[in-house]
């Protein structure tokens, strides 16, 4: 009996000593990184890593969320993070890092190294939002939005569709970004994060298109919305069309697209888009309430806008819509077919077939 008690005591003691060696770290000894920014450093080959760290408070109020911004330059990201650890009093925890910003200069340069590091870190979630920061990630992360309730949640809510759902904000996850960087016939896109001019909130209404190596094109906010609708099927949006000096606004409720690519030496991409919506703003007695006529007008307008956008993207040499992949998928192509496609892509022509269905013309005639 005594021997048994003794052995139990020894085992318990052993177990308790084990705790010290295996990742036991209380939550109040951890510093949560809420957003991570990576820029090019001052010297070539250097990286500037900016971390936004949450300082938790027991009371939660708007604008009272405290964060600390730490940044450091080193010749690799891993080193920078390791060095940053010596600048803070608690263990850095990337588990809640949901926003990753990549500086514009780094995007123009090369993001390969950054992405490898991000994919290797197991604690960085693959569903983090990725964005391109302008002018630099450090500048954007330094901003302290007034409305922030939890540390770092303003940026998180801006990106995701839990909070605001803006049709100008393109959402991109890390896993999708990584996939698009590697995929044949599909290129990445990144939302551009800027500071609001009055410096109290963020502005995310543009999109940037890098190819496999570097940044190629960025769109303005109108084009961004069109991209968001046509490529990401974002349906909580409103498109405006000019009409005799006024503007008609069509609020969308449903968007679907399909793509058909013909074979031949120079393939023709037929892009079909079906949209459903209602007129949110239109002149009174607009076209006498003749729905088919209105639809027709909107369709030609949308065709024109989309065609412009697609040619602009094609001319920049990027393929964020994934036409190349779709081409392969349609004809079960292999690498030879893809070579053919890459040669042909700068010359492909687009044919837009849009079909707009106006549900009700708002509440009034």
């Amino acid at each position, binding site marked *: 009996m005594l021997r048994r008690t003794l052995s139990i005591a020894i085992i318990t003691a052993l*177990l308790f000593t*084990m*705790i010290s060696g*295996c*990742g*036991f*770290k*209380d*939550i*109040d000894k*951890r510093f*949560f990184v*809420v957003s991570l920014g990576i820029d090019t450093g001052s010297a070539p080959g250097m990286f500037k890593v900016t971390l936004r760290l*949450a300082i*938790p*408070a*027991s*009371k*939660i109020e708007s604008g009272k969320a405290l964060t600390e911004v730490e940044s450091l330059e080193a010749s690799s990201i891993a080193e920078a993070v390791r060095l940053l650890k010596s600048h803070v009093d608690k263990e850095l*925890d990337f*588990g*809640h890092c*949901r926003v990753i910003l990549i500086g514009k200069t780094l995007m123009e340069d090369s993001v390969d190294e950054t992405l490898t590091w991000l994919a290797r870190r197991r*604690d960085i*979630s693959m569903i983090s939002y990725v964005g391109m920061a302008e002018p630099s990630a450090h500048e954007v992360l330094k901003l302290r939005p007034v409305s922030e309730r*939890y*540390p*770092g*949640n303003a940026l*998180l809510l801006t990106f995701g569709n839990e909070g605001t759902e803006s049709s100008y904000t393109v959402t991109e996850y890390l896993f999708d970004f990584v996939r698009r960087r590697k995929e044949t016939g599909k290129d990445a896109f990144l939302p551009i994060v800027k500071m609001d001019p009055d410096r109290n909130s963020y502005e995310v209404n543009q999109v940037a298109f890098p190819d496999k190596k570097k940044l190629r094109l960025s769109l303005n906010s109108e084009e961004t919305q069109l991209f968001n609708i046509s490529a990401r099927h974002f349906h909580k949006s409103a498109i405006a069309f000019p009409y005799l000096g006024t503007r008609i606004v069509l609020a969308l409720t449903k968007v679907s697209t399909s793509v058909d690519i013909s074979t031949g030496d120079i393939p023709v991409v037929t892009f079909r888009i079906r949209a459903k919506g209602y007129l949110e703003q239109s002149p009174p007695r607009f076209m006498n309430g003749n729905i088919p006529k209105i639809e027709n007008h909107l369709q030609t307008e949308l065709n024109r806008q989309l065609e412009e956008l697609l040619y602009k993207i094609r001319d920049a040499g990027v393929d964020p819509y994934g036409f190349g992949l779709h081409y392969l998928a349609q004809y079960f192509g292999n690498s030879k077919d893809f070579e053919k496609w890459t040669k042909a892509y700068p010359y492909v022509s687009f044919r837009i077939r849009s079909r707009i269905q106006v549900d009700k013309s708002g509440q009034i005639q």
Partner: protein
Amino acid sequence: MLETIKRQFENVTDLLTETVDNGFWPMEIAYFPSLCDERIKDGLLVPYSYRFDPDEFRRMLRSNPKYVEAEDPKQWANLLLKGFVLLKVEGKCYSFKSDRTLVTEPGTTEVESAVLGPQSAFTEDITMNMALLRLRYNVPTLTAEPYDKGSYSNTSIMVLYDRELVNPVILNMLRDKLDRIRLDLLLASSSLVKELTDRNHRLFPTILQTERPDRVAVMLRKGKIVIIINGSRFALILPVRLFDFMHAMDDEYDSYWINRFLNVMRYVGIWMTIILPASYIAIVSYNPEIFRVQLAFTIDGSRAGVPYPSFVEVFVMLFMIEALIEASIRLPRIVGSTATTVGGLILGQAAQQAGLVSSIMIIITSVVAISNFVIPNPDFSQAVRLMKYPFVVIAMLYGISGVVVLFFALMVYLCNLRSFGEPYFALFLPRSHDLPNQGTKLGKG
């Protein structure tokens, strides 16, 4: 006769031994006045004394079923202790049953109260209990086998079953076990439970104790075996499954959907009471990224002032709540509510404000305590109460993955248990023809 008895009961002063004489016949009489009731007057003393008629008296001795011939001197001591009167007339010994029934009314439910069900509970008297049971399970096939157990207490127990529904293999196993029991004092049903279960079974109860006659009736109908014990308010039911412990008698009386809802809630309760303290440790100290970021920051903020690691915090709070529960059972009823108020409200609030524990931990502790009492069976509730500690320890060492692994081990443990050879945690009982070689392979319990 008296000489023999006196020799056996030396110095037992509360035994009445006397030779009485009514002028016709002398009679030797011996009984314990404390064990016998007033019936001795009408049944024996009146006919013997002033209404005496030798023929009538002889006829009475022969025809009244309360009079039994007791010629074997070895039986005498036992009979006297059971509340019989021994008498010797005309050179013949008789016993007269005149045991005092202490209880004449059914008890009220205290441990397993039901809202709509019957409110009567078993009493500490075995005949009363039999009456309560016969009232609810009234068929000729209900069989009762009497036993006497406890070499010092000599407690009478009854094994009851419906002989058409009962599984004979289990019945034989029970008889074997009962024969093998060596016990000094059988004072409560729980001590019989301990004797009947194997050593390995002690963590979770595999025999159901109940104070409700209606539950016993329901179980008898299912072919289970019931043991009632003289002097205990609880009947034992075997074999049982885990789900029987989670079954409140109200389930039989409530409407279907209420019943489903409450059942689900009970299992969620069990799960919470076992998992919550452990997952608090795991989340706080290993994987704060599992839950939403808001939750992490809230915990972080409320833990900011706590000086110890999370597991000390958990142990402190768990100790407090266990002490509180224990105290409110032992304390007199009147003081009990005060203790709960002081302990639960004031102490918790103060501990949180003083920064000794985080406010989240206070919530967890109360949820743990409350959901533990959702379990209808007190025996099972105790087992579950204990189960959270291994989980806390494994969470200290391995975090959330340890909790899941231990949960797996617990499931296997429960599946491993057998209640009298019957699976304890099989979800859907196999129909009897599905069991391979039933009856031979169930040899070990």
